[in-house]
C-alpha cells in the first residue's frame, strides 16, 4: 500500500500544474454539488417549517356545500357539522383507525378587554387534545383540560401576542394568569399563555368547547372536527378511509353519499406525503444538476490520465518486461485517478460546506415580511453528514470511472512496442 502511494506521489509531483488544474475542475464540481444541495435543503427546510405546525397523523373535517341533489334537497345546501358527527367519528365504525377526536368551534371577532385595554380576538372552543394535534406550545400555565370541558368552566388560554398587548406591551404576561379578562360579554379566567405561531392564519384564544357551545348560544354546532389516526400508511388506504368516512357523514346529513364538496377532509398525512414527494423531486433535480457539474471534472481527470498513460508508455513497458502484470499497471492508474479525485473532491466539499455555513450566517438569517407574516427563505442551508458520506462514495466511484479507460489502455501496452519506442 505504501509503495502504491509512493508511486502516485512521484507521478503527481512530476506534473504539479497539470494535476492542480484537473483537481480544480473536480473540486469545483463537488463544491457546486454541495452548495446546490445546501441551498436546496435551506429552501426545503423553510418550506417544511410551515408544514410542521400540525401533527402529521391527523385529519381535519369541516362542512361544505352540497354539489349533488339528494333526498329531495337541491344542490348548494350548506352542511354544518354537529355533535352527532363527533359521536359518529368516535363510533365503532371508525375505531380501527381513529384515535383521539377534537372538535373546534370558532367565534369572533370579539373585543378582548383587560384593565382598560381592548383588542380584537377570535375565540376557539376546543378540547384538550387539540394541544397535541396542533403542537401548541405553552409558555405559561396550562392548556384547556378535561375538567374545563366537563364543568363548562370559563377558562381561557391566551395567545402570547394578545397577552403582551393586554399588558400594554409588557413582557410580564405571567402575571395575567389567574386574572380575568372579558370577551363577548363573558368574563374568562386566564389559565395559560401559549406561544404564538407567526405563520398562523389568525391568532386565536382557546376556551373549552362545551363552554363555548353553551355561553355563545351555539348548541349542537361544530365548525371543525379534528382526529388523529393510525394504521393508514399508504395513499390508497387513506383514500379508502376518507371515502368511507365521507359517505357516513354525507348519509348523516342527508347528502348524496358520493358528494365530494359537502364535507371537506383535510388529511395532513397525505398532504405531508405529497410534500415529501415534492421535496424528493427537488432534491433529485439538484443532485442531477450537481452531478453534471461533477461529470465535467471527471472528464478532465480522465483526459489527464490518458495523457499520463501516453507519456508513461515506455515506463509501463519496462515495468511489464520486468514482471508487472496488467493488473499491477491498472492499479497504478486507477489509484492515481481515485487519489486526485478524492483529494481535490474533499477540498471542494470542505469549501462547499464553508460556503453553506456562510449562507446560513447571512441569507439564512434574513426573512421576508409578507402580509404581515414573517417568512424565512432559507432555514439551515447545510448538508448532513450522511450526504457527505454519500459524496465520498461518489468521489471514489467517479475517480474509478475516470481512471478505468486510461488504466485499460495502460494495461494493454505491449512491452516490445513500448521499448522499441526510443
Amino acid at each position: 500500500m505504501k509503495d502504491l502511494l509512493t508511486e502516485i506521489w512521484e507521478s503527481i509531483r512530476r506534473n504539479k500544474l497539470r494535476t492542480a488544474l484537473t483537481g480544480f475542475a473536480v473540486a469545483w464540481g463537488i463544491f457546486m454539488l454541495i452548495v446546490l444541495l445546501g441551498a436546496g435543503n435551506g429552501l426545503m427546510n423553510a418550506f417544511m417549517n410551515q408544514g410542521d405546525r400540525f401533527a402529521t397523523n391527523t385529519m381535519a373535517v369541516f362542512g361544505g356545500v352540497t354539489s349533488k341533489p339528494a333526498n329531495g334537497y337541491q344542490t348548494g345546501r350548506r352542511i354544518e357539522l354537529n355533535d352527532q358527527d363527533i359521536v359518529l367519528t368516535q363510533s365503532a365504525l371508525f375505531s380501527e383507525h381513529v384515535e383521539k377526536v377534537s372538535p373546534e368551534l370558532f367565534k369572533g371577532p370579539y373585543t378582548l378587554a383587560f384593565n382598560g385595554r381592548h383588542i380584537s380576538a377570535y375565540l376557539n372552543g376546543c378540547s384538550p387534545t387539540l394541544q397535541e394535534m396542533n403542537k401548541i406550545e405553552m409558555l405559561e400555565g396550562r392548556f384547556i383540560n378535561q375538567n374545563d370541558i366537563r364543568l363548562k368552566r370559563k377558562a381561557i388560554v391566551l395567545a402570547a401576542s394578545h397577552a403582551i398587548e393586554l399588558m400594554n406591551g409588557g413582557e410580564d404576561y405571567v402575571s395575567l394568569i389567574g386574572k380575568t379578562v372579558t370577551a363577548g360579554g363573558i368574563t374568562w379566567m386566564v389559565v395559560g399563555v401559549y406561544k404564538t405561531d407567526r405563520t398562523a392564519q389568525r391568532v386565536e384564544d382557546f376556551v373549552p368547547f362545551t363552554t363555548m357551545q353553551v355561553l355563545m348560544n351555539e348548541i349542537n354546532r361544530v365548525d371543525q372536527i379534528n382526529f388523529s389516526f393510525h394504521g393508514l400508511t399508504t395513499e390508497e388506504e387513506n383514500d379508502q378511509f376518507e371515502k368511507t368516512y365521507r359517505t357516513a357523514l354525507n348519509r348523516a346529513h342527508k347528502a348524496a353519499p358520493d358528494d365530494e364538496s359537502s364535507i371537506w377532509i383535510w388529511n395532513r398525512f397525505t398532504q405531508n406525503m405529497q410534500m415529501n414527494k415534492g421535496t424528493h423531486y427537488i432534491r433529485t433535480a439538484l443532485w442531477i444538476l450537481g452531478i453534471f457539474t461533477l461529470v465535467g471534472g471527471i472528464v478532465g481527470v480522465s483526459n489527464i490520465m490518458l495523457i499520463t498513460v501516453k507519456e508513461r508508455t515506455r515506463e509501463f513497458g519496462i515495468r511489464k518486461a520486468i514482471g508487472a502484470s496488467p493488473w499491477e499497471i491498472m492499479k497504478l492508474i486507477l489509484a492515481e485517478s481515485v487519489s486526485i479525485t478524492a483529494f481535490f473532491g474533499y477540498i471542494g466539499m470542505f469549501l462547499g460546506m464553508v460556503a453553506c455555513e456562510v449562507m446560513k450566517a447571512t441569507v439564512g438569517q434574513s426573512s421576508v415580511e409578507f402580509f404581515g407574516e414573517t417568512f424565512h427563505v432559507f432555514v439551515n442551508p447545510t448538508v448532513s453528514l450522511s450526504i457527505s458520506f454519500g459524496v465520498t462514495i461518489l468521489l471514489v466511484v467517479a475517480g474509478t470511472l475516470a481512471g478505468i479507460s486510461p488504466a485499460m489502455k495502460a494495461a494493454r501496452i505491449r512491452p516490445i512496442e513500448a521499448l522499441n519506442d526510443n
Partner: protein
Amino acid sequence: MLIELRNIHKTYDNGQPLHVLKGIDLGIGEGEFVSIMGASGSGKSTLLNILGILDNYDEGEYWLDGKLIKSLSETEAAHYRNRMIGFVFQSFNLINFKTAVENVELPLYYQGVGRKKRNELAMTYLERFGLTDWATHYPNELSGGQKQRVAIARALITHPHILLADEPTGALDSKTSVEVMNLLTELNRTEKVTIIVVTHESGVANCTDKIIHIKDGIIGETTLNEQHQSSIFGTETIMK
C-alpha cells in the same frame, strides 16, 4: 537443455505478411554464454522477444526449463518474465524518476517481497557492482556504464534462469563496453548464469563461448568460440 526451441515460426502482419522467423531450432544449456548474431532485419530481435516471453510465436514449441511457453495470458507471461528472465537493454531502460536502488528492487516488488528485504538485497547487488555510492542517484546522474551495471543488477536480483542482453554495449563507448562484457563474462564464469547476448557487433560476440548466426529468419552456422578468436577485432578490444 534449459532452452529448447523447435521449429519456431513468426509472421508479422502489418498490411502485408512478413515471415520473420522461418523455423528456428535451438538448444541452449544451463550455464552457457551464447551470442546471437545477425544483421538488422535478420530476425534476431524477434527471436529475443520470443525467448524473453515478450512476444508470441505462431508455430512450433518453446520449452523453458521444462515448461512449454505457449499461448500464455498477459498475467502468466508477466509472472514467467518476473521469475525466469532478466533483461538488459541497449538503452538501459531504467525508470528515470526512480533512484538506482529503487530501479534494482522493482522486480522484487512485483514478486511481493517486503520493502526492507527488497532494499537490503538491492544494496548487496549494487555493492557487488561497485555502485554503493550511487544507490540514491537518479539514472540521469549516472554514466552509461553505471546505468548498464544498474540494469544488470536489476536483471539479476530475481535469480533468473536466463539473462537476455539486447545489444548491451550498443550505447556505450568501447572502454565501457569492455567493462560490461567482462562483467557478463565474470557472472557466467563465477555464478554460472546462463547469458544470451543479441548483437550485431562481432567484438561483442567474440566475448561469448558460442556464436549463433541468424540470417533471414533461419539459423546459419553455430561457431564454438571457447578460444575467443573468432573475430580479428575481438582479441584485444571491442571494435566500435
